């Protein structure tokens, strides 16, 4: 009995280590192959820089890149917060009033299905650049929050809804004590998607604004470095964008886990 248990525990430990080690090993292998290809093929840095050059550029250009990272992250965060507030707020509004839902929902869908790359230049004409970038981040990110929250608000246990009715709950009580907690797992799922999308929205808008020149975000740096054939800096900026996306994803997963771990099925580790 205890022997079998020790074996199980050992297996889970090995499993956990492998889950971290294997992706790292793949990454290391990829970097080594990349370095070898550059050296053996004697490829010039303006075609493909070696990983070492990318890293050293990252460090030497940190003053420029770090400032740009901050600009892009700020836009992303603002877009994300607005998307979260707007998505949840609209979903609650739709939930409270069917007429408003019927009137506005189709346009939320239209806003979502129209490619953001096509909308961005227009926004840049009508809005100041910073606002246009933010609007792009918002447009891309709010829809998954809206759609998921709407679904969550509708997925309330009917018996629980009856129970609230039986005890004479007010609309407000039903919303805060029943609908929103029941929708929380869905809302968090929407936010997890919105986090990555708001970064994409910010980058798309910065690139669209790129030729206008006033921007200083990471995507703008990529465009600018492209014009100057500063390929190592392009790679360094791209690396920072990926890392930012990964950090956003894990941060939101952690928040979701912390909020749901006591009660939701998704956060339960099953014993086999």
């Amino acid at each position, binding site marked *: 009995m205890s022997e079998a248990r020790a074996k199980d525990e050992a297996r889970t430990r090995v499993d956990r280590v492998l889950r971290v080690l294997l992706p790292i090993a793949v990454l290391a292998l990829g970097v080594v192959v990349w370095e070898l290809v550059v050296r053996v093929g004697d490829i010039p840095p303006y075609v493909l820089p070696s990983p070492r050059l990318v890293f050293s550029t990252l460090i030497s250009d940190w003053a420029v890149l770090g400032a740009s990272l901050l600009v892009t992250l700020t836009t992303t965060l603002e877009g994300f917060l607005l998307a979260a507030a707007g998505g949840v707020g609209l979903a609650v509004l739709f939930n409270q009033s069917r007429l408003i839902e019927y009137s506005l929902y189709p346009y939320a869908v239209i806003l979502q299905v129209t490619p953001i790359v096509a909308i961005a230049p227009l926004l840049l004409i009508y809005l100041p650049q910073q606002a246009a970038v933010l609007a792009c981040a918002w447009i891309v990110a709010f829809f998954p929050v809206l759609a998921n929250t709407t679904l969550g608000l509708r997925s309330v246990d009917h*018996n629980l809804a*009856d*129970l609230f009715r*039986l*005890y*004479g709950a007010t609309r407000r009580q039903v919303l805060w004590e029943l609908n929103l907690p029941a929708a929380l797992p869905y809302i968090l799922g929407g936010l997890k998607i919105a986090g990555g999308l708001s970064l994409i929205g910010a980058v798309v808008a910065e690139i669209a604004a790129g030729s206008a020149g006033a921007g200083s975000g990471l995507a703008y740096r990529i465009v600018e470095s492209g014009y100057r054939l500063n390929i190592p800096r392009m790679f360094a900026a791209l690396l920072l964008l990926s890392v930012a996306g990964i950090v956003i994803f894990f941060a939101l997963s952690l928040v979701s886990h912390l909020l749901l771990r*006591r*009660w939701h*099925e998704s956060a339960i580790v099953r014993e086999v």
Partner: protein
Amino acid sequence: MALHSVGKTFVNGVLALERLDLDVRPGEFVSLLGPSGCGKSTALRIIAGLSEPTSGTVEWLEAEAASDTAPRRIGFVFQEPTLMPWATVAANVRLPLKLAGLEPNAPARVDAALARVGLSGFAQSYPRELSGGMKMRTSIARALVTEPKLLLMDEPFAALDEITRFRLNNDLLALWRSLGKTVVFVTHSVFESVYLSQRIVVMTPRPGRVFTEFLIDAPYPRDERFRTSADYVSRCRQVSEALARAIAATEGP
């Protein structure tokens, strides 16, 4: 409390209840027994005010109607435990008080309700940490916390295993005897209804109406001796036969 010739037709045209008459006396334990789809749950929902009858009336004793508002005079236990998974056992039991704005002495009343169903040690647990029987106990504690005069139970133990069901049957009887509530208990189990009730109302399906009634005048307290007695078995046989006739009567040849 009484239902007078209550009928209910759903929007999709299904006739759930037709001219249903039911009198419930204060302090009584009465079961509604019938096959699934006979409208017994619908009758219960109409009593609770969760559903409006299409015809007929629900009448309350004047004293009851005057003294209390509807939410406080009724406790309802659903087929499922129907707990909020995001809230602790204590918060779940506290809900009716919170919704009614009766917060001040809520903790004491929640503790008392939990103690009555034997869950004192689990106030801070979450529903998913409890067994099926304990979830149902929580649900019963929640129904009791407003100290209602009338307890409506809709097949509350149908999903539980037999051992747990027997224990909860015994505990429910003990609660009923000590608290003096009126209980309307919906079930499709002949054995459960005979064991628990003073009176069994057998219903016919489609449309639901009263077929016949049985008085179960065996003395309380009832326990395992009653459950294995010849008296219990013969009463169960009578009720089963009536139920079979009720089903046959509507199905026709």
